[in-house]
Structures are given as C-alpha cells and as structure tokens.
C-alpha cells in the first residue's frame, strides 16, 4: 500500500502532520502562558465588575442579617438626589479636565528638554522620575506638610514677595484645595508620561530633522511639522492613560482632605469607598461604581473616536 504512494506525496503528508502537530503544541503553550493572566483578570476584574453591576440593583449591605433583595433602580434614584454624589461627579470632571492637559503638557516639555544631548541628561531623567516611583501615600503626606498654613510653600511665597503676600491655608480652604491636589498630582505623575513621550520622540527618524534643518526652519516650525505629527500614536496613549488615571482619583483625597473642606475635593471613587466600607452600603457603592464605569467608558470611547486614524 505504502509503496504505491509516490515519495513526494508521502513526504508532504509527513511534513503537514508535523506542522499541524507543532501548531497544536504552540496553541497549548499559548493557552498555558495566557492562562494565569486571564485567570487573574477574570477573578479580580471581570467577576467583580459583573458583581458590582448586579449588586447595584439590590439592597446588599456589608453587614446585614437579611439577604439582599432586588430593588430595581432605587439606588440610582437616591444617587440623583445625593448632593455629595453630584459634587463628586463635578469634582472628578474638573480634576480630569485640569490634570489631563497640564500633566501631558508638562511631561512633553520635560521629555523635549531631556531628549537633547548634553551632560547630565541621566541625572535629570532620574530626578523627574523619582516622584513616580514614590508611593502616592508618602507623597500625599509630605505635600500635606508642604501645604500647611505655615508650611514650606507659604514660607517661600512670603520670602519671594518680601512678606507682602500671605499664602492661603491650601488644603483647608475650599477655593484652593482641589487646585492644590491637581498641582501635586501633576508633579507626581508627569515623570511617568515623560518617559512615554521620550520613547515616542526617539521613534521619529533623525533624517526628518536633518531635512528640516537643511530647509532652515525655525525650532517652532520643526516641532509643529516634524515632532508633533511623529508623536501621533504616543499622543493617543498618553491622553487615554492620563484620563483614566485622573478619573480614578482617590489616594490623595483619602490621605489629604477626606473629601473636604465642604466637599470641595470629594470624588466618585472616594465616595464609593466611603459608602461601601464606612457606611456599609454595598449596593449604593456598587451603584456609584457602575456610574463611574459608564462615565469612564463614554469618555474613553469619545477619545478613541476623536483620535482615530482619519484616512
């Protein structure tokens, strides 16, 4: 039987068997490698998010002798009338609206500065990156001290203005507290996005810059027509990551102000944690989380749409 089959066919068949075999083995390896990550994502992200969606429509409590029951949209109706929640939505958007452009801009500025070749570049890179690797809790505690009424910041203001200007009580004044947290957050986060921008800058081919300099363009024109278009992909990434991080503002608020004074720094995530733990209202906190999820989703989709490839 075997002899009747021409040699070339037999070879081809053997070849294709080993190929299929190898592909199957590759497939198994791929599944095995992805499994831990997929499992963790399932257990700690997908399932909790699914549960939050379900719990938001129940009366679940953290401590309760009675089982949770379905209550329809009650939690959402309460949200709509909760002044602190509405203020949290507003604060979250204001924070994001300030942090996204400022942090992206500062980070780009830093990246452009240290992209130049001069002595000590590595030193500056490290300096700008230090806040990023420092724990946010530590950063928040340190800045709470800096922002005190007689803290370092106000002493500097006093010294620079020869005692003419007395700095405000930054974190205890409703008119300055959110701005103070914005400033500190930008300082802490800019270093990370500087690195991302830097990576983007280094993908721009040097010959484009050479051509530009042969044309004798100004620095601004070079930035506008060579650097900026070259950063298209980086730009989208930076925009979306800063936006999502800004929306989830929590640590700074929890450590520095606990949402005060007069709700000037309360945020969605802070309220979700406060309702869920301190106040034991699991279902209500889930409803806040659900609203938060939808808001972030809408904003991210809008950003994706606006930054899409237009051709």
């Amino acid at each position, binding site marked *: 039987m075997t002899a009747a089959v021409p040699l070339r066919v037999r070879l081809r068949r053997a070849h294709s068997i080993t190929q299929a075999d190898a592909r199957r083995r590759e497939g198994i390896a791929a599944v095995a490698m992805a499994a831990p990550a997929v499992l963790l994502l399932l257990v700690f992200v997908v399932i*909790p998010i699914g*549960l939050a969606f379900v*719990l938001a429509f129940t009366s679940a*409590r953290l401590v309760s002798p009675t089982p*949770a029951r379905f209550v329809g949209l009650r939690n959402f109706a309460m949200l709509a009338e909760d002044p602190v929640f509405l203020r949290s939505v507003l604060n979250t958007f204001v924070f994001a609206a300030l942090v996204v452009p400022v942090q992206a801009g500062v980070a780009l500025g830093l990246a452009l500065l240290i992209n130049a070749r001069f002595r000590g570049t590595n030193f500056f890179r490290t300096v700008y990156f230090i806040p990023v690797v420092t724990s946010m809790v530590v950063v928040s505690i340190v800045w709470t001290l800096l922002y005190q009424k007689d803290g370092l910041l106000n002493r500097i203001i006093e010294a620079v203005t020869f005692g003419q200007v007395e700095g405000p009580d930054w974190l205890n004044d*409703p008119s300055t507290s959110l701005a103070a947290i914005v400033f500190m957050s930008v300082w802490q986060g800019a270093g990370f996005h500087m690195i991302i921008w830097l990576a983007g800058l280094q993908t721009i081919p040097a010959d484009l810059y050479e051509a530009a300099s042969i044309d004798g363009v100004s620095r601004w024109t070079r930035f506008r027509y060579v650097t900026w278009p070259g950063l298209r992909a980086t730009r989208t990434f930076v925009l979306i990551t800063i936006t999502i991080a800004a929306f989830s503002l929590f640590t700074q608020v929890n450590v520095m102000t606990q949402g005060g004074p007069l*709700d000037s720094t309360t945020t969605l995530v802070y309220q979700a944690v406060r309702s*869920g733990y301190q106040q034991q209202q699991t279902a209500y906190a889930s409803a806040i989380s659900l609203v938060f999820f939808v808001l972030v989703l809408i904003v991210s989709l809008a950003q994706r749409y606006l930054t899409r490839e237009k051709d």
Partner: protein
Amino acid sequence: MNAKTRRLVTASLVAVTTTAVLAGCGGADGGSGSEGGVLKLWTHNAGNAAEYDVVEKVVNDFNASQTTYKVEIEAFPQGSYNDAVVASSSSKKLPCILDVDGPNVPNWAWGGYLAPLELSGGEVPLDDQLPSTVGKYQDKVYAFGFYDVALTMFARKSVLDENGIRIPTPEQPWTRAEFASALADLKASGKFEYPLEMGTGGSGEWWPYAYSPQLQSFGGDLVDRDDYKTAEGALNGPEALDWAKWFRSLVTDGYMAQKSGASPNDDFLNGKSAIEWDGSWSAAKNVEKLGDDLLILPPVDFGKGPKIGGASWQWAMSSNCAKPEGARAFLEFTRKTKYFTEFAKAVGTIPATDAAAAQIPGYEPGGRYEPLVRAARDFAVVRPVTPAYPFISSVFEKTAKDIVAGADPDSALGEAVKQIDANLKMNNFYAD
C-alpha cells in the same frame, strides 16, 4: 443571610475597590476555632505590645488552668481589624472569641456576628462594671471590656492662675459663659495663637467620640434615642443648631484651629495651646512632663451637664462558635480583678471596676487620675445603641467637619438628618 448572599457580599468587597487584599484576609486558617478543643481568639492589638502582652498572659493562664480547651491568639493591626472581621464573617470564618470596639457592638450583634454572652460565673459580677464597659443590645449583653477611656481637658495651673481663670471641679465645672470668657482672656494674653486645642486634625471615629458629647451637653444628640427611628429634632433642633454655631465660632473667633496639627498633645506640652480636649490616654505622659502644674479638668457644662463618650474595646463571642461553652468558660475565667487591674495598668486606661481602680496608683479615690475615673462614671454617655451607628458616625464626622469649615449649620444638619433618616427607613429601622 443565606450562603449565596454572603458570597455576593464577600465578592462585592472586592468589587468596590478592585483590590484583592480583603478576599484573602479571613481565609488563612480562620476555622471555626473548635477542632480538638482549640478556641481561636482575635484581637486588634498587633501593633500594641503592652496590651497584647496582657492578652497573652490571660490566655496562658487559662490554658494552664484546665485541659479541655486551648485558646490560640491571632492578632491584627487595629487599622484593618474591622475589615478582617467583616470579611471573615461573610465567609463564616469568624473565631470563637473576638474583641470589638464598643460602639460597633449593636451593629455586629444585629448582623449576626456576635452571640449573647449569658455569663453565669466569673469572680467579678457584670453589675460591678462601669456601665459604659458592658456592650448591650436589645437588653442582652454581647460584650464586656476591662477598661474604658475618658475625655478630659488638660491645662496648666500656672496659665489659668496667671489669667485669673477659676479652676473647675467635677461638682462645679465651667459653664458655657465661663469657658467663653476664659478663652477670650487666654487669646487676649497674646501668648497663644489658638488657646484651645480640640484635635480637629484627627479623623474617623475621633470626631463623633470627641464632639458628640459636646452636642449632647448642649441638649442635642446624634439620633432620637427614644426609638432610634429618626434623627429629626435631635440632630437639627435648636440645641444642635446652637452647638453647631458655637463650634464654628471657635474657629472664627480664633480660639481653635480649623485643622489642628498632627500631634495635638505635643503642641499642648510645648505651650502652643492653653487648654487641650484630649483623652485619658495622654494623662500619664502629661503628668510626667508637667508634674504638679498639670490640671485634669472636667468637661464644660453647656447646659445639660458635662458629657464624655463611653465605651472602648470589649470582648465578645461569635455566633458561629462551635464550642460556645468553651468560649464562655474562657470569658468567665478572665473576669478576675487582677486582670482588670493589669489591663488598665499596661495601657494606662481607666479600670472598669472600683476594686481594680483601688489597686492602681493614681486611680484610687483622691489619686492623681481620679477625675478620669469620676468622669467615666458620672459623665459618660455611650454612643447611640443602634446597628445604624457606623452610618450615623460617618455622617456626623462629615457634617461636623463641614460645620467647622464654615458650612451653613442649618442646611448641614438638615442634610445629615435627611441622610440618617433615609438610611434608617431603607433598612426597616434595623428591626430584623
């Protein structure tokens, strides 16, 4: 609560913060603490060596005294203790014996975490204890503590004398007017930027613990204690409004910082403030630093008598304990005057019985710390005995902070009442 709901709630802990920490907390060999006569005991004292040592001593004594049961200690840091208990209750992994912060007793009893104690033996009868050290809910005893703490005002005798201010006594505490003029005089002396240190930089349970007694002295309260069905009238009545205006005026008159420093007691000891509203836990340190110049003063009488908060950490038994008779035997064993004495000595707290107080230098009648014992006995008001307390506490903290920061007292208190009433109603007044 059925198993399915428990699982839902456990998982929802994770959902809210998307952290994994809590999910694993109760998992590690919590057990029902009863295999082979082993009883697990949970305490919040992981970061508190002095108190932990006494817990360990009591447990060792019990284990040596009999052979039927063996108590094993597991200690948690105070900051994550409540979370650990709540998480492990959701997965039915509570230990047989656990300690609980006094104001949480009704919440945990209602939630089915705790079993009524029904103690029969023990050397010290429950009736001998300071009332605030016995955790009751719906006429049943769920927990008892070996000590209490007391709020008090610290001041320097020299400073009060210098400014011609009368030194108050428990029989004749300062009145509201006297206190106001004392603060005005101290402010006028020019030696203090803020004559009064109230610890407004703190957060969490400190706010209701420290400031709701002042509200009660004005005649208000956190909730109407007749039936715990509304805060209307108690938290937004004219007395409460009066308290709120007074509280804010301390800031606007420049008597008190809107947010005080990180270590208010050090600020007082360093002479930055003249009068400090603080707890008995600072007494020993203050006496050591200031000696005879230190005054331990009763709280101000704002109309309804001086008030302080009552109830500290207490011991209880969980409802899913497989060997309740073992847990009961242990708890009865601990009720000896010598343990009441040792706890109070080790931690510098007020012993829960007079017999123990008599054995601790300074706490005996006429002793240096006797004002604290008297305050705990005569002025202590326990925080509202309702499962809603954690919610009320959180609302009050926020409201009081807003008032100090300049919120309109009327609308701030109105909103607080609205939230508390909505919560009570939504939970069917915690009747289940």
